[in-house]
């Protein structure tokens, strides 16, 4: 295949004139890696949409057990929401500091991000434990199975995110601001912001609409 034929089918980068397939070649890793991670995050949202759909289909299937309005405490949910939102904001500050290769502020904001996420997780686990203690565990009714699957899946994501935050804090500490560490940190921030977006849907659909009079 001659070079002009290769250019015609878009197999070369740069210099080709009008293949209609772009003329700059593949993007750098700093674009491709977070973009691939963005696709993962979107597919994670598709996963959550299925859990939301099953929750919506089963929310009234209480089998004589407790219903939504009897179980949820809006004050706790408000504290959880603000912790996770502040955590997401502080994660952004960590990215800003990391972009400028400022070790102290990157580590500081990462630790604050993790602590706020931990506050969220502790409140959620205490809520779960309280519900199980009064016999409103996941095996009580289809509604509670759907509730624990949906909210628990989000909680599992937050747990994974906390482990990831700790890993990144350690890697930045020991390896410094290398390009691949920066890409991982950016992926972490995309993951963490996405978890907050999913929480917005959870506190609205599960908790607020569930406790309407």
């Amino acid at each position: 295949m001659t070079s002009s034929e290769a250019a015609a089918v878009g197999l070369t980068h740069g210099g080709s004139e009008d293949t209609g397939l772009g003329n700059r070649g593949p993007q750098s890793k700093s674009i491709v890696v977070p973009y691939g991670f963005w696709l993962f995050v979107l597919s994670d949202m598709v996963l959550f949409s299925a859990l939301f759909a099953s929750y919506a289909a089963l929310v009234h299937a209480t089998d004589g057990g407790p219903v939504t309005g009897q179980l949820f405490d809006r004050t706790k949910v408000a504290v959880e929401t603000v912790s996770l939102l502040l955590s997401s904001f502080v994660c952004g500050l960590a990215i800003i500091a990391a972009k400028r290769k400022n070790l102290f502020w990157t580590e500081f904001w990462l630790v604050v991000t993790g602590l706020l996420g931990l506050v969220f997780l502790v409140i959620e686990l205490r809520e779960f434990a309280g519900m199980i203690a009064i016999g409103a565990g996941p095996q009580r009714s289809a509604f509670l199975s759907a509730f624990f699957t949906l909210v628990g899946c989000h909680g599992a994501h937050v747990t994974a995110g906390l482990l990831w935050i700790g890993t990144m804090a350690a890697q930045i500490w020991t390896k410094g601001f290398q390009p691949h560490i920066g890409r991982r940190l950016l992926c972490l921030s995309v993951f963490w912001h996405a978890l907050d977006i999913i929480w917005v849907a959870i506190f609205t659909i599960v908790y607020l609409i569930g406790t309407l009079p």
Partner: protein
Amino acid sequence: MTEEPELLNVAPGEPHDSLLGETISYVVGLGLALLLTGVSFWVASTSHLWGPGVAVGLVVLAVAQMGVHLVFFLHITSGPDNTNNVLALAFGVMIVLLVMIGTIWIMAHLAAGMAPGPELTNLQMQHG
């Protein structure tokens, strides 16, 4: 063919270029998100609003807050450098809506078509 350097892509989550601009973006996003969260909790608590509209209003507020998170935290914009990110997002939103609306629609019709009455559908309750 002319070069269009402004068409280069940016990664999702990548902040803008100046320290002040980046920080302001996050602060504005935080302020708007807190405001929308506060309005959501107020709407859910107050008795001054028309009851049947409250749930719809809450969903609208939640969608608005998700938009705030996408724009100010994830920096997904309508700019030419963001086309790939927006297209992926649009596809994701389409699948999410299909799954959710489709499931809720079908399951609601199934429940309506299957249920002669609560006393007949729940056999365990009948014996208990």
